[in-house]
């Protein structure tokens, strides 16, 4: 696990969290696990910075939190996308595509 791999940009964390939540309500640990498995263990969310980001998103009104029971009956805080959050996700995805496209062009430029 190199350091570079863990240094997720703040923006990408938000994007991935929103994308994960678009599948349905999920708790913080679930989001970590999903990102890790969906990226086939290439990406690891730094757990300590996930929660500040989630709370920030909640304050922005993109996600809503509610206490609920987890799969094995543990009390967990479930996050859910709000309509504003949906719009934000679309926006961020567009931005990300533009960014990767632009970066790819730069890298391919010889």
């Amino acid at each position, binding site marked *: 696990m190199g350091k570079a791999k863990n240094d997720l940009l703040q923006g990408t964390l938000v994007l991935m969290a929103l994308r994960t939540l678009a599948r349905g309500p999920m*708790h913080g640990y679930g989001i970590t696990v999903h990102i890790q498995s969906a990226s086939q263990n290439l990406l690891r969310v730094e757990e300590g910075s996930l*929660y*500040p980001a989630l709370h920030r998103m909640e304050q922005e009104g993109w996600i809503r939190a509610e206490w609920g029971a987890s799969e094995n009956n543990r009390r*967990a805080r479930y996050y859910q996308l709000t309509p504003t959050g949906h719009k934000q996700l679309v926006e961020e995805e567009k931005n990300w595509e533009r960014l990767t496209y632009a970066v790819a062009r730069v890298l391919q430029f010889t």
Partner: protein
Amino acid sequence: MSLLLKLRGMLQRRRLETDIDEELRTHIEMRAADNKAAGMPAKEANYAARRSFGNVTLAKEDTRAMDIIGWLDTAMRDVRYAFRLLRKTPGFTAGSVLTLALGVIGTTVLLTAYNAIALRTLSVRDNKSLTVLKRELRAGGSSTEFTEEEYRNFSEHSQTLDAAIAETGYDTLLAQLPNVGQLQFAEPRPVIVKLVSENYFSVLGVKAVAGQMLPDEKHNGAEAVGILSYSSWQRRFRGDLSVLGQSVFLYGTPITIIGIAPRDFIGTGLPPVPPDMWIPLSMETRVEPSHDWVNHPDEARLRVLGRLKPETSARQAAIELTAMAQRFEGSRGMQDVTSAIDADPTAYFLEKRDPHFLAISAMLLLSFGMVLSIACANLANFFLARATARRKEMAVRRALGASRGRLVRQLLTEGVLIGLAAGAITLIISPLLCDFIWNQIQSRIVFRFSDLYIFVLRFSPNAWVIGWTMAVSIGAGMLFSLMGALHGSKDPNRALRGQAPNWPLKGSRLRVSARDLLIAAQVVFSVVLLVNAGLVGRGMARGQKVYPGFDTRQVMDIEFADIEGAGIDKAHTAEFRAELTRQLSGLPGVRGVAFADHVPLLGAGATTVTALGKTEEHAFDSQVSPGFFSVFGIKIVRGRDFTTGDEGRGTSAVIITESTARHLWPGEDALGKTVAVGETKSPVQVIGVVEDTRTVVLGRVEPVYLYFPTAANAPINDVFVRTVGEATASTGLVLNAISAINNRLTALASVHVMDDAIWFQRLPSTIGTLFAACVGGLGIFLAGVGIYGTIVYSVVQRTREIGIRIALGAGGASILRLVLLRMMRLVGVATCVGLGLAGALSHALTILPFGIGSLLLFGVSPWDPLVFVTVAAFLAVTALSAAYRPARRATEVDPMVALRCE
């Protein structure tokens, strides 16, 4: 309130922290469980989970910071959004800010004034240990005046007092002021002087702003020095420092000004009027030869203040001083007049525990509290109407994902902003208003009698007043915006469908909704306020009409401040009086001249009288010269007036009033009867009976009033002149004649028309009328606007429902009747409740102690039908006209339009 908020904040933070704690813990536990499921041993699994999470504390803090930043962000956004919305509806914004400000301003002005008048303390060192001595008299009543010997006794022998200081009352003396810079004083002019003990300033710990204070030892008359007050220095010498070292000539005695007192030092209070100068007591015989207390040790004329020793209570001092005073009286073989000596706290203006003052303050607070309640009810309606109008917008925003809490918070922000604006306006205006009112009082009342007495009062709201105003304004803004917000964000689905909120409307059954309650509350408050303002106003108007029973328009009163200052001593008094009478009588338009020791309605003497074989009675008296009764137009019913012959004989003849005759000798002829008068029980014979007049207070005729002839050489203070026409027309002529006799007298004479005395007596009722008009006007305005607005709005709300009814075939007239009937029933019930409460309150007013109620009502019944009917009619008309127009309009609107209108 603040404690509650703090507590809630603490609990909330605790909740927030444990929430984050739990969230992070769950995360780690879930990871550990997964690790175990992957085959790690339990201990290893936990450890790995914690390691992979990293620094838990740091994460916790970061998370919480996000919550706080987010909260602040939203708050800022709310404020910006609220500003934008408020700007878009300037009518609503201005209306609610003004309504709230109008409501709060009464209580704020009151608190600001209370603060300046009752809570302000003397600007002296350690004012808590400074007490003012008061003598409780065995005969009843109390006095703050002590003799020179008593003062020395307290000052030298008390074990509980560190030191005692003494001051005289205000004395007006004719002074030749020094020329300073450009200022030239050609003529002598009257100044106010206070004589104080030598240690006065050093005990008070007051330092001079320029020069020095009185040296702390006796002068033995060797050097005559004085301290100038700050206001006098500014007013008379325009703040020129070169006045220091110059001399003021009092009675030809030069007094060197050695220092100027600080601005805040106004003397030792009650009232806060600084004299022009403070001069050592030892100078008294030199500046006021007539007041030789050195030869009259029994004359009690010193106010004594004591500084308590550390660790000594005022009670302990009072006990010791009482014993000292009684021992002193015993040792001098004096009558024991003192039942106790109190050591009271000093005050700047008045004693705040004075029950009259407390009762009046409480009444004012109650009145303005009611004005505030009405303003609050108006505000609640404004917010409710606004929230209803915005239901659709709120519903859309909720549908887009905004939570109800979020919307409520946004409206709450608007409430806070409106409260802040109202509070700020109030805090700016109320000190100005206090100053304005005070200046009016000063210029119209104080200066009407003398422009020498300058009160020093400063009105500035302190922390408590600011706290009260802001708390009330913001609290009201928040409370009512919350009410509106909760109502407006209700039933978003119905709102989206364009339906009114589920608002009960049944023609037959009276179901009480929040709006109905509001209308009712508004009506009740308004009725109570208006009825009481009306009753007081009517009582006061009655007080204005009382006539004293003697002529006031054609009588002039010339008051001499200090005859001896003009060089007329006791031996020449009789001569001077004769000369004055001759000169004034000769003037065209003057019909008579008389002298008396008291001005009717501005003062009277007190004595006792015993008729043969009867008990001793309290009596008011005054000494009058021959011609007094004809000058005032008081008829002599029996017997004769005094003659010049009576003057010389002292007080062996008396003229009594008709009431006195009836009181002392019912059914008999009083003429020629003999009574014993005063402590000496000297016998006097009744030589005449005159008409009753209201001489002491306008409110009543005294049962016993005696007129004695003036002693030939008694110092005269007041000369009364009867003129042919209005007295005001002849003042110039009279003053010229006086200056012809002695040109120094004009500066000492002040001329009033006797109407001024009436005016002075009517002052309380004049002020009361103004106050009732003020509160009543404010109340009528707020109540009228509020009730009208609320009813109009609640009827407009039903336009749609009325449309449905008409579409279903209901007649316009029957709907109009339904709407009006329902409104009148509501307003009617509320008015009856209000009238009952108002009656109970005004009834309570009449049984209030100290006769304040009867002073206010002047005999108007607390159930005065005129006031009650008028107020009820006002409300009925307001409510009817408010309900009629929109209801009428609603019935005329095409039902289709009405149905589509929401």
